[in-house]
């Protein structure tokens, strides 16, 4: 049966490997170039020596230069977010749908192998291939993006899209996409509808989870500081993910949403916005600290792995009734 599954899917697996190779052809050279530039500019020293939030001007210039050189690549990185979906569409959705569409299920399900056994082997082989591909891709992109993140070129690792393309979540997304594709192919045993359903289902789960659920995995922290007095936002963790911010007056009422006001003390006169909000007003921010990157990665991966298991269970149950 393993021979059979391998023979049937070797072409798809070959294309997956080719896809990864194409990805590597982009990621490896640019990644190496970034690291080289990072070292040449002495950014390691800049970032580690000080533990200071305000590096000296030479370092600022070096960081700016690095960001200008490579910051644009982050846009390309956004494309990586769709890769798990592609695996689900091309490996998952046709798995059962194509058998039924071509009628070959009538051949293979009337041999001496039960449907459940058949499903275990096929799902297992394709799932294992997807797992390997996703691991390579997830680790590769994490490696690639690290200098950009360290140099502060792209913002918090927790922010949407950046969170989604590194760490372990790409692996979980890929497994979920494959399971979703298989399940859709059993519900609509035709390749094209199954692919469409996979696409719709993947987007319908991923986006609400990322937008609505992710900011709430762990209770967000609040930070307040006066509008007068502070030189700038006291940011203990430059990698934190800002969820909401604004200016509140003394009673706590939001007077200027999405704003931050900082006035120079004792400047006198109607300086900036301070005159409008009163001296008792304070800046308010709701944020997730950057140190929660890995807890968030494991929580989100856990959710998608659980969904994967559920979908595979339902798929195998339904497969026995598929006629």
């Amino acid at each position: 049966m393993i021979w059979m599954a391998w023979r049937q899917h070797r072409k798809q697996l070959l294309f997956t490997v080719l896809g990864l190779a194409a990805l590597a052809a982009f990621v490896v050279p640019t990644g190496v170039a970034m690291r080289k530039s990072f070292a040449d500019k002495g950014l390691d020293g800049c970032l580690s020596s000080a533990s200071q939030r305000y590096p000296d001007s030479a370092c600022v210039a070096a960081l700016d230069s690095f960001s200008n050189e490579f910051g644009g690549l982050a846009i390309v990185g956004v494309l990586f977010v769709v890769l798990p979906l592609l695996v689900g569409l091309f490996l998952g959705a046709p798995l059962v749908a194509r058998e039924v569409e071509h009628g070959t299920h009538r051949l293979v399900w009337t041999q001496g192998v039960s449907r459940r056994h058949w499903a275990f082997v096929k799902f297992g082989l394709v799932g294992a291939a997807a797992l390997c591909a996703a691991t390579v891709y997830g680790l590769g992109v994490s490696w690639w993006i690290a200098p950009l993140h360290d140099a502060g070129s792209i913002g918090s690792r927790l922010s949407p899209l950046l969170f989604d393309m590194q760490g372990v979540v790409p692996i979980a997304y890929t497994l979920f996409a494959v399971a979703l594709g298989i399940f859709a192919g059993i519900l609509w045993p035709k390749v094209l509808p199954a692919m469409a359903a996979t696409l719709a289902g993947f987007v319908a789960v991923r986006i609400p989870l990322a937008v609505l659920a992710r900011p709430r995995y762990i209770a967000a922290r609040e930070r307040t500081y006066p509008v007068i007095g502070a030189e700038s936002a006291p940011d203990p963790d430059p990698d934190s993910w800002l969820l909401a911010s604004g200016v509140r007056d003394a009673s706590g009422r939001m007077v200027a949403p999405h704003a931050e006001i900082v006035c120079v003390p004792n400047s006198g006169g109607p300086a900036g916005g301070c005159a409008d909000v009163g001296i008792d007003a304070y800046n308010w921010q709701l944020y997730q600290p950057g140190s929660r990157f890995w807890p968030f990665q494991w929580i989100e991966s856990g959710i998608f792995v659980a969904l994967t298991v559920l979908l595979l269970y339902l798929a195998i149950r339904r497969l026995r009734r598929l006629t």
Partner: protein
Amino acid sequence: MDPVLETDQLGKRYGRTWALRDCSLRLPAGRVAALVGPNGAGKTTLLHLAVGLLRPDAGTVRVFGASPYDNIRTLADVGFVAQDTPLYRDFTPVELITMGGKLNRRWDAALARHRLADLGIPPDRPVGKLSGGQRAQVALALALAKQPRLLLLDEPVASLDPLARREFLQSLMGSVADAGTTVLLSSHLLADLERVCDYLVVLNAAQVRLSGAVDDVAASHRQLVGPRHNGEPIAGVAEVLRASHTDRQSTLLVRTHGPITDPMWTVHEVTLEDLILAYLADGHAQTSHAAWGVLT
């Protein structure tokens, strides 16, 4: 002897339409049975129920005494060639034979290879590039390599030209005769199967119209020609299947339950073909006229 295939009040429904209904039949071992009926009569449904691809919605189906649904122990004894002979089109015949060996505990790869070699089928060409007749032969070889005790074939010759039909059926009969395999093969044309089958199941509009050994069926049906008939009973006649009348004369196709001795009637034998047509004409549905909004 226990029947190889037995159905009792078997029914299968798609949505609200019954594809097969109240189907009761017993197929004795060693028979080569023809399953005849027009397109859409339920032949494929019956075969899929027998090979465990479908689960009955009513009644039971038993193959070698067990329900075949997703039952690999029973399926090990059943060879099946589905309609349009589905095969993995990018596999070569050699790979398909290897596949069969991996998927079945009992597998005679040498038999399959010999068959295909005798037929001159190229071993290394993807089956998607073979002709329809060659593909049908490959599918049959795969089914026979299981050394099945029951062989089910769904319209195996429908896509073949007349020469390929004859070759296919000849090679099929050559293989099953020695092993004593029970065969059930479907077609919408009896002419395809008349030469090879010794048992007959006629299916029309989701129901079994007739089933029995060809000899019994032939012996129990007669054509009667005599004076104009107005429906009064005739001694020895169980059922009038079809009647056509002229002013003075009637021609009846009847099922008999005894000798017809009435000298008024001239008795003729009937061909199997006429007989089946009579059973099939019987069930023609008129509902579509209403659906089309036309009057008959």
